[in-house]
């Protein structure tokens, strides 16, 4: 069993064509349903539905309130290392990129953890580039164990691992897995990942399932917006999340909508995703997946993030450093992407409160 079988159904059908045939009635029908199906999701994502964003927003707001209340969970990323064997054309960490490479030694991980937990963060996301040589699974396990001493929840966003390796991370205290397919378009994927282990589309695609099987409590999927048509990518992201939800009912499935940012190497988005597109994507996901968490990182600017509260977002990163280290000592490497929201944790909390929501730091034990 694999999501690959689901995705194969859509591979050759013109999704754009389907979306183009959506009528106003289809959108109204989708809005009136408590459990919108795939066709409804497509209607909500269609170009035609972009003209009905307010109606989508009202519904998404109501759905979000019922399921999550007026609460936003905060988390922070912790970059452990930036060694990478891949050549993702859009990424600042890619192998051929000329940047200083380093990884945190155990003592440094502990210093970072102390500094970050002092700031009130209880939910940490540990990240590395893809290098089994420099940041092998044993290193990841050791880091998860260290971090679990300081945080209620430890999630990982690293290269795809095997089932037993994920089980090892769970045993070391990790409870969440984030892994993004970047693009669900297999041909484009090959083009954007010309070298390195990441070339294996299927191995990455099936990683969230392996994480679920290994006992991760939370699994987060998504596509990097800006690489191709966002409607197609969001549609498949939604189906991926629904597939995981239906096959692993005990796992909390969530989605992210990372939007590409200018990075070292100067990659420009291939398909612009406007703020309006982003909002439509979030609203459609909220309606299609009423119970799924939706994360928004500091890739998005502070003012925009504030406006997103109430439209479906349930988790936000705060005070983020995207270089290796950076909480205990100043970052000495450049970040993976440039942080748009440079607000500190207290400022993020203030803006959440200003929208009548409660910032929550701890939501696991």
């Amino acid at each position, binding site marked *: 069993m694999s999501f690959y079988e689901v995705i194969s159904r859509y591979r050759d059908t013109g999704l754009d064509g389907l979306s183009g045939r959506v009528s106003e009635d289809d959108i109204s029908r989708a809005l009136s349903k408590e459990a919108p199906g795939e066709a409804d999701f497509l209607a909500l994502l269609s170009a035609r539905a972009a003209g009905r964003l307010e109606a989508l927003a009202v519904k998404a707001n109501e759905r979000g309130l019922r399921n999550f209340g007026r609460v936003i969970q905060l988390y922070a990323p912790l970059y452990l290392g930036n060694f990478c064997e891949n050549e993702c054309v859009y990424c600042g960490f890619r192998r051929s990129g000329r940047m200083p490479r380093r990884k945190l030694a155990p003592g440094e991980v502990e210093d970072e953890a102390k500094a970050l937990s002092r700031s009130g963060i209880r939910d940490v996301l540990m990240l590395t580039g893809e290098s089994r040589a420099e940041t092998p699974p044993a290193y990841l396990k050791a880091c998860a164990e260290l971090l679990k001493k300081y945080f209620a929840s430890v999630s990982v966003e690293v290269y795809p691992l095997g089932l037993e390796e994920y089980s090892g991370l769970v045993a070391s205290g990790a409870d969440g897995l984030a892994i993004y397919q970047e693009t669900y378009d297999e041909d484009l994927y090959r083009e954007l990942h010309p070298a390195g282990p990441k070339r294996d589309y299927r191995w990455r695609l099936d990683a969230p399932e392996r994480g679920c099987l290994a006992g991760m409590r939370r699994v987060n999927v998504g596509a990097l917006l800006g690489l191709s048509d966002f409607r197609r990518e969001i549609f498949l992201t939604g189906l991926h999340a629904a597939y995981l*939800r239906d096959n692993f009912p005990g796992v*909390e499935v969530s989605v992210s909508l990372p939007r590409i940012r200018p990075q070292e190497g100067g990659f420009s988005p291939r398909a612009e995703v406007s703020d309006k597109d982003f909002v439509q994507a979030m609203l459609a996901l909220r309606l299609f997946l009423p119970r799924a968490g939706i994360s928004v990182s500091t890739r998005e600017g502070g003012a925009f993030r504030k406006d997103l509260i109430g439209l479906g977002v349930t988790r936000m990163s705060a005070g983020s450093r995207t270089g290796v280290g950076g909480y205990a000592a100043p970052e000495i490497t450049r970040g993976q992407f440039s942080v748009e929201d440079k607000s500190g944790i207290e400022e993020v909390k203030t803006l959440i409160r200003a929208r009548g929501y409660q910032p929550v730091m*701890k939501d696991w034990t």
Partner: protein
Amino acid sequence: MHDQFNIAGLEIKSRFLLGTGKFPSNEVMRAAIEASRAHIVTAALRRIDLDSEEENILDHIPEGLIMMTNTSGARDAGEAVRIARLSRAMGAGNWIKIEVITDNKHLLPDNAETIKASAILAAEGFIVMPYFNPDLADARRLRDAGAASLMPLGAPIGTNKGLCTKELIKILVAELDLPVIVDAGIGRPSQAAEAMELGAAAVLVNTAVATAQDPAGMAAAFALAVEAGRRAYLAGPGAVSETARASSPLTGFLG
């Protein structure tokens, strides 16, 4: 006549229990608790942070109330037991609402795991309040496991759909001596009143209060509705007749 409500031998001063999740702030939550006049409030251990000064939800719960920790997030009996023990070790007391959920799509409880956890925790001296799907056989198993009350859902958590399980709850009320507290799904005060009219001992509400425009106002409304429903139950409502009653009996000539 004093209408006493006891759980585990302790007199509970209100039949309206309030959950503490989903509120826009701890201050709003506190105001809602006060307006609700609840005697028992429930908070998820996963949200309790004793190390944080501003975040510690327990600091915002008024003095003198019973804090019932819940095991939200537990996926099996083992996790529920671990959370309950942790809660007690943290000084949060003996009251534990057992919530074991293995389906995140519908957030429905897992009765089998709930029964297992109830037996273990009751044996360890906890006051066990299990949240479960209203099934008579399972209700008896929970009673035998040592549960102090039964907390059947009215509808799935957060749906505000009301008493979808009404007929099953009526059976639980009729068949078991334990207090039946309708938990989850109650969206409006009228639905809370209806649960009380059926003979439920109490009602637990969270989403409908926390996400109201005026949570304190809604909490007060629920308190009144619960009280009204209880009084109606005690007063014994007149029977509802299936047919019209002629004022002069049609068979009166038979003497």
